[in-house]
């Protein structure tokens, strides 16, 4: 018997093949930053439908909306950062093609993920009180504090429901084959909480290394950058430049030129989008990366 933990390496196709229509899918990263874009592209090209997407949204939401994959969306914003409004998302909202939309406060996401990760049905917070978050989400409940405050008042808080996820998809810089994974960029975002809120977690990475290589570098990587432990991870996918075109510092910065081209196509006519889709999105990940390389070479 091997003395090592299991090897969890999978292909993009195996990850997507293990998912089912109607699932609740949490997508890590933030806006147009460190999104598991290779997995998202494969989701768009799959037969899956009616996904409940939970995301601090970027082009993941835009692409899935344009591909008609979203049955329900829980979001607080969708943005490309340097392009404030995500055009595919805006189009889907304006055309009413996302059947069910839950707009939350962005801090509520953290609370909902914390509740799910702690196996609690909800956690209380102030965010949402007085705002249309409670009006447009009539299912959200409030709860009275069992403890009086200094004035004897029992405050009424929003009871943020747990964001229980069937599956979490996240993208990091390095992982070993067993699912220990490190982020090397400026912010961990909430990828560990997505993993803890989910029944299953798949992590795509720019590079798979052996366990010693996770901290050995070069350059040496501080242990504080190890965000995911293998207990939380069910599958590891090595997919270089898999975060493209979002920011995945230091492996690759956001590809602003490509993002602009994406936004222009999304904002344009059906023909504009079709041309972009056929050129970049119609094939598998290898075809995408080849098309991106060709795009870069002609600039």
């Amino acid at each position, binding site marked *: 018997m091997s003395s090592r933990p299991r090897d969890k390496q999978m292909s993009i196709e195996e990850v997507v093949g293990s998912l089912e229509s109607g699932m609740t899918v949490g997508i890590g990263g933030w806006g147009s930053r460190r999104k598991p874009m290779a997995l998202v592209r494969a989701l768009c090209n799959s037969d899956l439908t009616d996904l409940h997407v939970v995301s601090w949204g970027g082009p993941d939401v835009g692409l899935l909306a344009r591909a008609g994959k979203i049955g329900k969306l829980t979001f607080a914003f969708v943005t490309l950062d340097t392009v404030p409004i995500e055009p595919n998302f805006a189009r889907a909202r*304006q055309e009413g093609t996302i059947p069910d939309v839950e707009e939350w*406060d962005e801090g509520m996401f*953290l609370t909902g993920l914390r509740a799910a990760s702690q196996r609690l049905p909800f956690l209380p917070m*102030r965010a949402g*009180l007085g*705002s249309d978050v409670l009006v447009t989400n009539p299912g959200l409940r409030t709860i009275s504090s069992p403890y009086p405050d200094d004035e004897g008042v029992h405050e009424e808080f929003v009871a943020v429901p747990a964001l229980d996820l069937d599956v979490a998809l996240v993208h990091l810089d390095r992982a070993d084959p067993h699912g220990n994974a490190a982020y090397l960029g400026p912010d961990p975002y909430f990828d560990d909480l997505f993993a803890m809120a989910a029944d299953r977690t798949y992590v795509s990475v720019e590079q798979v290394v052996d366990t010693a290589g996770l901290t050995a570098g070069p350059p040496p990587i501080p242990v504080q950058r190890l965000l995911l432990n293998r207990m939380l991870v069910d599958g590891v996918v090595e997919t270089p430049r898999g975060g493209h075109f979002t920011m995945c510092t230091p492996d690759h910065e956001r590809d602003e030129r490509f993002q602009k081209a994406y936004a222009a196509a999304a904002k344009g006519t059906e023909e504009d989008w079709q041309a972009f889709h056929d050129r970049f999105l119609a094939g598998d990940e290898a075809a995408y990366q080849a098309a991106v390389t060709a795009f870069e070479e002609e600039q």
Partner: protein
Amino acid sequence: MSDVTRADVCAAAIADAFAEDGEIFGSPMGLLPMLGVRLARLTSNPDLVLSDGQSLFLGGVPPLGSTAEVVEGFVPFRQVFDIVAHGKRHVMMGATQVDRHGNQNISAIGPHERPKRQLLGSRGAPGNTVNNRTSYWVPKHSPRVFVEQVDVVSGVGPRRAREAGPAATKHHDIHRIVTNLAVFDVHGPDDTVRLLSIHPGVGPDEVVEATGFALEVPADVATTREPTTEELVLIREVLDPKGLRFNEVPEPDGEPA
């Protein structure tokens, strides 16, 4: 200095909004708020805590478009939400719409179920407004922004907070609304938007016409102060030598930029 620009006035007015905050996280959204907050840090409030807008607390006060060489802390997004709940933060947000009752909208124009125009989404506005001091910056004051009633309440005004109960009012603190024409707070009759001062060169009628709800103009409305010589030097030579502020607040027609 006679060649004070409107953008300079706005920067000083924004800095003034942060002057009394003490040692808290000054969190600007947008270019002029970033300029104003950095100006406050260099003048009226040296204790103010600044970030790079990504994940670092800055030890220095870099010019717009740069990050400081000295870092004094780590503030990833997850910690921002903890600071919001903890309350040691003053955020200045944008606003696509603001109404008489100080409600703000950055979510969508038109009905929420199928918007005429989808915007960003409400982002952190619901949580900001019931947790920490919140101000708004409006670079183009117009009746499309200042409306009778916002389409979606993202940021909560005082009345909506009151109606939602003590948990919503306890830390509710809408501080200032700064625009390219004037400065407001929300302490008018029944906690409505109130005019505090009009920028130099702007007439009261201009503000009234650009506001889509009936705005009371007191007989002796103040004029927003002009930046001091020190502030002008800081704005022009230290913080914004490239004049990025004029992209957001160009000079009104006929005046030198």
